[in-house]
């Protein structure tokens, strides 16, 4: 075997690695030209990092589970018809059980209406629950909605008032609220904010440390990953 031939294995690895890295990078940039300079690449990275700063500040108007004074806040942008949001919900519930007052869970809407047209109205339904019964009702409604939805746009809309009734809300008032569409703008504002922060799928979460450092987390990641990030964010006190 010649030494020249021996070079082919590492060469093949390098080509494969370059191909994968190229595909990933182009995919992230969404750039059809495929041509970029290191400066442009750096600017793009900086833009993505800066996008997190577009996150609307957490205020009393948000839906917060846990203490508002918690050193770590997890802002989750979610879609009620997304199966991954459904599976991520118990993960977040476990976080709240384990971390108590050290973590605040902030829920914001990010319905992907192109693939889940029913998710918009479902998000509005949770806002109606909030209007009629406050934060507690919002979370009860949210928990129940994730429990009963089969996901992927398969929830029967007739379930929405049934859930309201299940958690003890007045169905007639709930229906009036839902049909009025008065919370549609709130849902839209949350969605626009999710996009502005760089969210391109759900669930999209931003873990905010006490020192303001923001960690983006895309997808329904395992509890262990979330725990690692929370521990890191708690260090930033």
């Amino acid at each position, binding site marked *: 075997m010649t030494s020249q031939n021996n070079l082919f294995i590492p060469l093949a690895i390098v080509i*494969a690695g370059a191909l994968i890295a190229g595909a990933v990078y182009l995919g992230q940039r969404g750039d*059809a030209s495929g041509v970029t300079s290191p400066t442009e690449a750096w600017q793009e990275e900086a833009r993505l990092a800066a996008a997190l700063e577009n996150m609307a500040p957490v205020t009393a108007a948000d839906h917060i589970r846990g203490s508002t004074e918690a050193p770590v806040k997890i802002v989750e942008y979610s879609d009620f018809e997304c199966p991954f949001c459904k599976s991520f919900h118990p993960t977040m519930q476990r976080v709240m059980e384990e971390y108590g007052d050290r973590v605040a869970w902030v829920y914001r809407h990010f319905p992907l209406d192109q693939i889940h047209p029913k998710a918009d109205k479902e998000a509005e339904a949770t806002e109606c629950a909030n209007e009629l019964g406050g934060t507690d009702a919002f979370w009860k409604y949210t928990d129940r909605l994730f429990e009963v939805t089969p996901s992927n746009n398969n929830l029967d809309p007739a379930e929405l008032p049934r859930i309201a009734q299940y958690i003890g809300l007045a169905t007639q008032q709930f229906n009036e609220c839902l049909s009025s569409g008065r919370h549609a703008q709130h849902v839209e504002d949350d969605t626009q904010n999710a996009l502005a922060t760089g969210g391109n799928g759900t669930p999209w979460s931003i873990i905010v440390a006490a020192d303001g450092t923001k960690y983006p*987390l895309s*997808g*329904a990641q395992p509890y262990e990953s979330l725990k690692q990030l929370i521990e890191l964010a708690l260090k930033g006190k």
Partner: protein
Amino acid sequence: MVIRALYKVFRNPAYVALSLFTGAVVFAFAVWLPNIRLIAAVLGSPEASFAQKLALPISLLGSIATNFTLLSASYTVAIAVLFGINLAMVAYFVRHRVAAARQSGIAVGFLGLGSGILGTGCAACGSFLLMNGLTFAGASGALVFLPLGGAEFGVLGTVLLAVSIYLTAKRIQNPAVCGVNR
């Protein structure tokens, strides 16, 4: 024929190692893909200890069970395994018959990997690479019209890699020799 070619290649431990390494890299990349920015941020964070810098990427590998459907997890694993096998076979082939390398299934294999990467994350809500590309093209709603919501690309990638392995095995089993004039 494929089995005999596989035996020929993988009786050399160097090719087994190459295949395992490549498969592991492809798998890790596919699973980390949605959170590359997060991993980079944590690795570069002065707050994070060495153990945390190590633990986060490892824990994110678990998302194959939480952030993938059964179908997408299956083809992600299949693509990683097949690409590892494919690359090792191509490396073997290239080392033994450089001149005929262009005739092997290497291009098909890379097409398979490319397609597989497009499919990665498509099953996740909002998808990742494919959705970004389609959004750029102003046609992200097109995913609605794909029966498997974009997973077609992952399945296609798996098939292309299998074809590539078959083509490479065929080349390995059929020596590139000059025919005898009779």
